[in-house]
Structure formats: C-alpha cells, structure tokens
C-alpha cells in the first residue's frame, strides 16, 4: 500500500487473542496498538488516531456498545466487533450503535483479514466515489439511476431501487434490518422487517444468478443484509 503505515487499535481483554490478531494484522502490514479494556481503548483510539478499531464486546470494565457510542461522537473510523455470544441482539445492538461489521468467536484469521480489507476499501471509496457501482455482472449508475445486468437494463420499482442504493452506499458493511427500514421506508416501519425481506427477495430475483445462493446480496442471519461487490 502506498499510504504511510496504517494503524489499528485492538481492544480485547484476552491477551492470547490480542496476540494472534496482532500477528495476523502485522503480517498484512498494519501497525497494531493493544488495549485491554474500554478506558484504555478510548485513550488509545483518541491518541493514536487509528484507521481501524477491532473491538471485543465482552470487556471487563464496560460494555463494548458504550465504547462504540462514545467513539462515534467524534470518529467515523471503521469498527469490527468481536462477539463470543451467539445472541444476535448483541450484534444488532453493536451494529446499530455504529459498528461496521462483526465476527463471532471462534473466528478464523483469514475471515478477520477479509473483513478488515472490506472495511478499509469502503473507507477509501467513500472519498472519491465513482458514480457507477459494479458487482458481478450488474452495474448501477447512481447518477442516472440506471440498473443493468450483463448489459441489459433491469426494471426496478422505486422501493427496490432505494433499497439497492442504500446497500450500495454502505457496500461491504452489515446493515441491520432497522437501519435499512429506517432508510428506505422511514421511521414508521422499523418493525415491519417482512417488507424488507420481500423486496430483498425481489432484488435477488432480478439481480442474482441463483437467488437461493446469492453471491452479492447476502443475508446476515437474524441481523441484516450486506452487499458484497
């Protein structure tokens, strides 16, 4: 990478996890700062101005979600959450509080690095945005509002289009049902997740090769959706 060395803050109370995360990230060329708790994490995040934060949700001195809320008041740095709990509401809470992605323990290093890369790319593309977004054979011209698949124009209803545009804007990021409903349907429909599912399914029918095995419009079970280019 041409940029100066990028830095990441890993906030995790388990030293052994910090250790292998550090090993993996350093192998990718990151500069890693470690923190064992919420307070130290906030100090590190404030002083190091990192390009990425990896945050464990179960910390001894506080809740990871509180850290996120605090962080989001002054920084938009990408945050990947690590969760040992299989309860989906924790992840949704973290995502709604501003996390970009999540991983459930036990997770693989390869998976972690892939998520880190996606989040990083998203940050970069946010700077100089190309009006035409491409995934698979689909290209979406956000300026002209034209969607085509393999060169053939695809007709989308206004809601389908709004949903797609929302996913494209946050490409790579997990969007919770709540976030998507709020964005596309407005605050009065945040509980109507079946709306979202029906339109998502319609989008898949129109844009995916095999809607039952989607490659781009992915479901994050019980949490939300994500667009992967």
């Amino acid at each position, binding site marked *: 990478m041409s940029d100066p060395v990028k830095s990441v803050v890993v906030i995790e109370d*388990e030293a*052994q*996890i910090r*250790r*292998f*995360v550090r*090993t*993996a990230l350093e*192998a990718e060329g990151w500069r890693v700062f470690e923190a064992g708790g919420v307070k130290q994490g906030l100090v590190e995040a404030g002083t190091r101005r990192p390009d990425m934060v990896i945050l464990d949700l*179960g910390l001894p001195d506080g809740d990871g979600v509180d850290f996120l809320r605090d962080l989001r008041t002054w920084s938009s740095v990408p945050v990947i959450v690590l969760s*040992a*709990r*299989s309860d*989906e509401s924790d992840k949704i809470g973290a995502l709604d509080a501003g996390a970009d992605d999540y991983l459930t*323990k*036990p*997770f*693989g*290093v*390869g998976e972690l690095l892939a998520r880190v890369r996606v989040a990083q790319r998203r940050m970069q593309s946010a700077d100089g945005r190309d009006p035409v977004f491409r995934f698979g054979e689909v290209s979406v011209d956000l300026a*002209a*509002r*034209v*969607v085509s698949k393999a060169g053939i*124009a695809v*007709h*989308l*209803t*206004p*809601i*389908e*289009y709004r949903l797609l545009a929302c996913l494209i804007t946050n490409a790579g990021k997990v969007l919770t049902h709540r976030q998507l409903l709020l964005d596309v349907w407005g605050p009065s429909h945040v509980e*109507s*997740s*079946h*709306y979202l*599912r*029906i339109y*998502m*399914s319609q989008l898949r029918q129109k844009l995916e090769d*095999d*809607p*039952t*095995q*989607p490659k781009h419009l*992915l*479901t*994050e*079970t*019980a949490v939300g959706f994500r667009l992967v280019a």
Partner: protein
Amino acid sequence: MPTHRDNRPNPDSLLQRVQREAAQAERGRLRIYFGSSAGVGKTFAMLATARKLQSEGREVLVGVVETHGRSETAALVEGLPLLPQKQIEYRGNMLSEFDLDAALAARPSLILVDELAHSNVPGSRHPKRWQDVEELLAAGIDVFTTLNVQHLESLNDVVGGITGIRVNETLPDTFFDSADEVVLVDVPADELLARLKAGKVYLGTKAEQAAQNFFRKGNLMALRELALRRTANRIEDEVQAYRSDQAIAGVWKTEAALLCGVGPDAGAEHVVRSAARLANQLNVAWHAAYVETPALQRRSEAARERILRTLKLAQELGATTTVLTAHNGAEGLIGYARSRNLSKLVIGRSGRVRQWPWVRRLHEQIASQATDIDILEIGRGAAGRAEALDAGATQDSTPGRTQMRDEAMRIRPYRYALSAAVCMLTTLLLTPLRHYLDQANIVMLFLMMVALVAVKIGRGPAVLAAFLCVGAFDFFFVSPRLSFAVADVQYLVTFVVMLAVGLIIGQMTASLRFQASAALSREGRSRALFEFAREMSTVLEVPTLIDMAQTAVAREFHAEAALLVIDAHSQLQLSNAAVDIGTAQWAFDRNLPAGLGTDTLPGSPFLYLPLKTSMRTRGVLAVKPVNPRFLMIPEQRRQLETFGALIAIALERVHYIEVAQEAVLRIESERLRNSLLSALSHDLRTPLSVLYGLAETLPLTAPPLSDAQRAVADAIQIEAKRMGALVNNLLDMARIQSGDIHLNLQWQPIEEVVGTSLAATKTSLASHNIETQMAAGLPLVRYDAVLIERVLCNLLENAAKYTPAGSTLRVIAAPDGSMLKVCVADNGPGLPAGQEEAIFEKFARGEKESDKPGVGLGLAICRAIVSAHGGRIRAAPASTTGATFCFTLPLGEPPQVPEEMDSSSENAQ
C-alpha cells in the same frame, strides 16, 4: 303498538335456556309415568314403551319393576333384561333393593326404575329411590319411572285430607318438575273400580281392604282431578318455556318472588307446602325464612329440630332457605324481603288466641311497618288442627308454653326449695326488726329478695318467691299478725302491687339472665371462631394445618375429626382409618355434604363436609360427634360449616404459598442455568478462539515453517474448529433440554435461510454438487432464522459427511397441505434400514463405531427445533437412491405488504 324491543327474548332467560340445554345434554333424560292412584296402569304403560324401544334397537334394562302379582304386567317384563336385586340385611331380615352400583356399572342406554317415591332399605347409599335416579341421570343414563300423585310432597297433605291416609314416602316437587317428560296415565274412576273388582289391581283380601279404605269413588275422582291439574300446571310451564324460547310473548314477567315466613308452630309445614304450591302456580322463585328472635331461642331442642325440618322441607320444595336473626319476627322478615325484593309474604295464621289486647299479631306488625308488601295469611292445616286438639286437652295449645313447662321441668326441684328457704330466712330476719322498720321498708326488703332469687336461682323460683313473700308479709307483718286476714283494705293494694312488682322483677331479671347467657354462648362461639381463624392464618404447612384443624374441631364440637386433603394429583389423602374414603370421595366429587344428618348415607357415624373454595374443593372434613344430636342444632351446624370454610381458605392459602415458592424456585434455577450456560459458552469459546487463531497465524510467523510443522498447525486448526462445533451443539442441546427455546419468529422467505445455510456450509460442501428446487411463489413462513439455519446446516453437513465426494445434494422446498416441506436429499448410500427414527435420538449415529466424526447430537437438536416451530422432521424410508431428510413448518397467514404504486414504467427518471 308493541315496539320491536318487546319481541326480543330476555337475554337472561336465553342464557338460562342455554345453560339448561347444556346441562341436559350430558344428563340422561327422565320420563315419569304419572297417575292418580295405584292400578291405573303406569307400570304397564312404561313397560310397553320400553318393549317398543327395545324392538327399535335401544338398549333397555329393567332396574326394578313391581308387578304386584299382576299377570299382564309380569308378561310384559318377560324378555327384557333384568338387573339382579341387591340383598341387604336389615334387622335380621334379608331385604332386596334396587342395585344402584350395578346399574351404574351396566350403563344401559335406558333403565326402568319403578316407584319413584320408594324409600330405600336403611343401609342403602341414599335413603330415597329418587336420589338413586338422580345419580343415574347424572351418569347420563335415561330413566323411565312411575309416580302416584299422593307421593308428591306439596300435595301430600291435601291428599291426606281427602283420603284420610297420609303416605310417608314423598317426592320433592323440584325433582318432579325437573323431569324431561311427564306422561299422564289416566283411567276414569269407574273403570279403575271395575279393575279392582276384577282383581287386576290387588289380589284377594288385599283388594277388599283397599276398596274399603282408599278406593272409594269420591277419593278416586279427587285424586284424578289433582293428578290432571298437576300435569296441567306442568304443561303450562312447558308452554311458558316454549314461548320464551320462541319469543311469542311480548311482555316479560318481572322477577317477582315469594317469601314464606316459617314459624315455630306445628302448622308451619302446612304454610310451607301452601307457599310452594302458590309459588308454583305463580311461576315465581320463592324463599323460606325462619327468624330467630330472643324469645324463640329459648325453645327446646325438639322444637328447634322441627323448625329445621320445616326449612329442609321448604328446600326440597324448591325454596331458598335461610335463618335470620332479628329482634322480632316482623323486623327480620321485612328486612329480608326488602333486601331480596320479595313483594309477597306468606305467613301462617297464629294459632294462639290474642293474649293481650296491646300485643299485635305478626301480620298486623308487618302490615303497619311495610305497607308495600302483600301479606298472605295461611290458615292452619289439618296437622296444625290435630295438634291443637291434642294440646287443647292439656289446656296448652302453644308450643311456646309447652316449652316453658318443659324448661320448668328440667330445672331441678331443689331450686324451688332453696327459694322457699330464702323466703323463710328473710321472714325470720325481718321479724325482730318489724318494730324498728316501717312496713313499706319491709315490703322493699322482700322485693329485693325476690330480685336476688331471680338473679341467682332463676325464673320459676322467683315466681314462687314472689307469692311466698306476699303470704309471709301478710301472715307475719300485717295486723292481725299470724293470720291471713287483713284488717285494712289498704293492704290489698299493697299485696297486689307487691306481687306484681315481684313477678315483673323476677321475669325481667331472669330474662336478662337468659339473654346474658345466650350472649355469652354466642360470644363463646365467636371467640372460638376468632381463635380458630387466627390459628389457621399462621399455618404454613399442610401437615400442621391438618393437626391444628383436627384438634380445634374435636375440641369445639366434642367430636372425632378427620381432615382429608387432596394431594398434588387431586386425590384425597386418608388420614384416619375410621373414615370411609368412599363417602368422603362422594362428598368431594359432588361438592355436597354426606353422611350423618344429610340425604346421602345418613346412617354413617361421620358427617362429611366438602371444603369448598373459590377455585376448587380442597378436601373433606369428616366429623364424628360423640352425641349426633349436637350437630343437628342449627347454630352448631353453622359453626361447623364456618370452621370448614376457614379450613378451606387456609388450605387454599397454603396451596398458593407452595405455588409461589415453586415459582420463585423455578425462576431462581432458570436464572442460575442461564448464567451457567452463558459463562460456559464464554469460557469454552474463548480458549477455542485462541487455539484456532494461534494455529492459523503460526505459518505467518518468521521464520517460515517447514511442511511438517505447517501440517501440524493445520491439524490443530481443523480439530479446534471441530471442537468449536461440538461445543456449540452441546450448549444448544443444553439450552433445548432445559426447555426454554425462545423462538425469534419472523415472517421471511424460506430461500433466505436456504441461502445462508449453503453459504455457512460452503467449506464442508466444497466437494459436492448443490442443487436447489424452490417451488414458485412460496409465501413467507414464520420461523426463527438462526435455529432453522442450524437445522439446514446440520442436515447439509450430515449429507456431506455420509456421501462420497462428487455426490449431488438437493435442497427442495414445496408447500404440503397447510405446511411448508423442506427436504435435503442426497444420492449417496442411503440410511440403514429401520433406522429412520432412531437416528433422531441423542448420541445416535448412522453407523456404529464409525470413523466419521461427530457425537450425533445434530439430528436431536434438529428435531427439538422443528417441533418447537410446530413442525415435524423425519427421514424418508431407506432406499438405495440416497437419503432424504424432510422437515415441515406451518404456513399460516403471512402479513400483507401493500402493493407498491409503480407508476413509472421505467425506473429511470
């Protein structure tokens, strides 16, 4: 013009009808063959109908039929199945009786039970046959039975008046009225007499006797009229019921009701019967009340028992009965009538001649105090007249007086001697003082003595003392002394006043004393109740409660007491061997008192009271009094019932304490389990994450690993991953086992979970071909995405595990009736035959001692998850073309999504 409203049936009466029909649906139907006298052919008619029904295929059983040796009737019984009679030994004789238990056990569709008013042999379950019939009906068995008009309770005395013969076997009118059908069997009097002469009714000399006593033409005609009228009344009721069903009548009766004041006199029974007839004719509900005034409290036990009997009779005749306590009769009756909105009051005419001009009779008192209440005064019946005549011989017609005499008899004579002695002593003491004291003062001292006698000794001795004092005063103090002659006429006034004042003082003090002692015993009862209530309110455990209650009841009622309480399975627990568990169970099941002093098994030494609470019956209190009459006293019986109610409340309270404790315990253990599970999940997963991550990052460290080292690192990683999956399964199983799977149900398309499952198992399925077949237009299904994903992942991973590389796995979803069916099929070797069910058991695996990894929890978890969703999972029967696992999810009605207004034909604008 009647408005539309008038034609609408009254909702209350409709509700009554619905309740009536609901009750009748379960009960058997009762048909009564009703006749004016013996010999009209009731049994014959009943048997003829039964034969006809039998030929139509009804299952008919003859419970009991009295042929009275009539050959025609006996011929009809032939061919009908006969229930053997029960043999009961009574005073050395073997008597045969209708066998209720055998009839209940046989459960025929229809049973014939002759002579409804028959009294059972002592020792039977019920004293009356109609109570047996009631039990048969309650068991859902239809009953045909017969009845003569003279056996009807309300007509009993009328018939007695006509024929001069009173029958003891009577049937409550309420039971007669509750019959589903009444068939009148009618024969003109002449024909009946002709039959009697022909020997078709009674045989031989019995026929002659009957003809002389009962079968007189006049009697028969009167009886026939009564039977016809009673039937007509019933039919009128039926018409009324029909009308109210069909809403023919436009006007609905307001709920008027009748109150019958039960007096202490013997004529009260007649008044009660008259009131019952009147209520029946007016078709209104009726109440019977006995007012217990201080004066009436003094009555003997026998008199009080009669009152109780009268009230019981009223209850049998369909009245709501009550005992009121009031200062005087008029007050009590008016208060009760006002509180219940009873506009008509029926009272008996007082038998006694007006004693004093200023004492107003009951009806006069009521009339002046409550001008809005109609009063019906009923003449004294035949019984009352007879008794009056009997009593007249002893010149004492009122039971009250008789009672006073009884009381006087009971007071031992030495009291009178004592009273006389006190008089003599006073006279002796006063004699030397006569020179120093004025005669007026001597009179005063005598009066004081009378008052003291009244207070200390009693009413009778005080009366004696009053007379003796006057005599002594005259004899010893008034000149001429030592003679009853009186010189000055002035003294006559003194004597009269002295006597009157003495008597009045004596009466009043004694009456006060009586009231004080009555108040004392009332207070004693209240205190016992209060103490018992306090004891009961502190109990926390059932065994302590049983002990305390038994002790308290035994102490208070001088009786042996046993408390039978239900256990966790609603079974009565026997605590005392002397108690008959069968009777207790009967009382418990019917929620009715049984045993001593009741209609059911009155011969039992125990009285069984069900302990009712608002929620359910919680047990039975069995009481065996030392003196059975003690419990017949209404106050004692009421006291016992109140004790029962207190015990019931305490039992319920203890029950709820237990329930609350259990709930707290359950919540606590659930909390503990949850925290344990989440701690376990954290503590197991964290080291696994570390192991997995470290093994994965091992090759990234410098210097680079050798191939052998790299292989070890890979192996560690793979095993750590497997271990992770195992831990997940174990934790899931633990959660499911603990019984609380909280489903996060959402309406979502099934292909969504198929997609995520395939993505999650991508690595395991890398060497297999995957096909998906989703039926077109599948609706949304309501499921928990995480859990169903686990089901699909388990099925897919299983399929991958047990099939060779390159096999094809198919995921198929299609509607199947009201369910959505999702199948995972492979073209591998298939399941071993006969294992389709067994593989869903915990720790079951397709092959024993297999080299395939896994503990075999996967399918058990799948089954638990699917059944929590209301679906089923199963393996298709073994076949050589591969294994197929299918599960179903209920389809339901998905919520609607508003159609989008897509006005633009193109999305580009």
